[in-house]
């Protein structure tokens, strides 16, 4: 039995690509993104300390999404683009 089907799925190819990986965090600017979930700041506070103490990071930028329920606004993404690396705290 042979049949021709209409593809019902999304066929758009993703256009985003993975940014080049860093070999080291020394001297880098790292952005920490809090998506506004409860508890995210505890995790990121600790991470900020570790990054500065152990990994010789030059600067840590803290960024907070207005709400976890929606995609980040454009201005926030612009801030993240200026960093060398981003760590996102996703859940509670």
């Amino acid at each position, binding site marked *: 039995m042979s049949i021709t*089907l209409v593809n019902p*799925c999304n066929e758009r190819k993703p256009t985003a690509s993975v940014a080049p990986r860093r070999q080291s965090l020394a001297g880098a600017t790292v952005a920490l993104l809090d998506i506004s979930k409860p508890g995210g700041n505890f995790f990121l506070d600790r991470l900020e300390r570790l990054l500065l103490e152990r990994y010789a990071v030059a600067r840590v930028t803290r960024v907070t999404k207005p709400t976890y*329920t929606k995609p980040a606004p454009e201005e926030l993404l612009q801030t993240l683009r200026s960093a060398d690396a981003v760590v996102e705290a996703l859940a509670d």
Partner: protein
Amino acid sequence: MIEPGHKAPHFSPKTGHGESCLLVFLETDCPTCRLAMPYLNRLAEQTAQVIGISQDSETLTRQFAEQTSAAFPVEVDSNLQLTRAYDPIAVPAFVLVGSDGYVKRAQIGFDKDELNAIAAEMGRRPIADGHDGVPQRKPGCSSRHLQPSDSGASPEPLNVYATRGTRASRIDISEDPYEYCIREFGDPLPVIPPSVERVERMMGGLDPAQVIGMIPPCYGEATVEKIAANAVMAGCEPQMMEVLLPLVRAVCDERLNIHGVQGTTHFAAPLIIVNGPVRRKLGFACGQNVFSNVARANSTLGRALQLILRNLGGARPDGIDMSTLGNPGKFAYCIGENEEESPWEPLHVQLGFRPDQSTITLFAGEAPHGVSEHFARSAKGVLKAISHALATVWSYRACMGHEALVVLGLEHVRTIHRDGFSKQDVCEFLFNNTGVPVRAYDDHEGGEGMGQMHLYREITIDGERCCQKFRSPESIGIVVAGGGAGKFSAVIGSWATGPRGSQRVTYPCP
């Protein structure tokens, strides 16, 4: 919507100072309108004539213009007079009027190529960079003039973005098509294989490449052909396309925020509520077993939406859809209001539609929570029982942040109506009598909802101090449905609500 070549209504060449002029219809709470503003500012800064036409109040419009640093005048369209004359189905809507007062271009939704084409036609430099991080295209929100009952407009569900998508690819298979479809693109239940012939029958001569929406979170292109293929799989009859196309538009309305609903760990799933004559025409169940497997129309429309969200939106339940416990409504979640047996005006009439219009409403809700009350003999008695269930929405001690839909069964409705309550009275009674006793917060361990207690309103219910559960009577929606026997109703809790969560949306069916 007005088309190129027509004379622009209420427009004098003086308005455009002898040059072509871009009219932009917008709503102050539409995220796509806000997204478009920096690009329009760029156009205005090149001395092009741009006029914003706001569908909102003076105050909101002034705030919007300030927040977006509007570099061009934004006028208030009182009584939506201009909007009705130009008849856009969605905002933002762009109408380019030539110096001769005739429409040169008309476009709905955000589209960078189209914005650059408008700039070029006005003799200005391009305004939208393809690589500035903003999506190439973004759907807008339903135009306000399609909401009131006296609009007289006939919504055209297809001409939404005036953009054409890519045709679906064809897949030749020689194995059992049922097994293939279950494996490759269904929910785990069998589907009808979307053969070329069946999909064509489903489209019934509509333009296959017309884009109806881009489905979050992966923004797959929902062309008429892709929607039809999923409708075939769900078992829809071809007539269902007249409801399914506006439904796809509604699910893409940013106010519903399906992006968040599909990704959340919460239980939420979009519940479809069908109102108006289309219920009878297509056989939607409104009575006995309304939430279950009683009618082909409810089951297949609900399932078609879920398949579209999964296959085109990419929210797979083993991936991006992160719901901790899920929701049985993710197979199909669709009810009709039992308008014939309700003494009150139906939901869509409450919202300003005419009784002879048909609408679909989407509400991001949990599974129904049953309320049995077989002994109360008065409206207040029945509503008290429902208020206790309402107090548990989201989490018992969390107040003010969430909403609920109450689906009243017919026996309860009769008791309530006999005591002279209107639908509005029901909302107000439930609002004033749903609360969480203050003593429930006397807990040293803390817990969800306790940290915000200082923001809650204190009220007295039956002599007890309580925190009021909801923000306003409008936080409680009322729908009448179900069969004639049994004193049952149901409470459906919401997901996060308001502009930062999901807002209920209602769209007309043509």
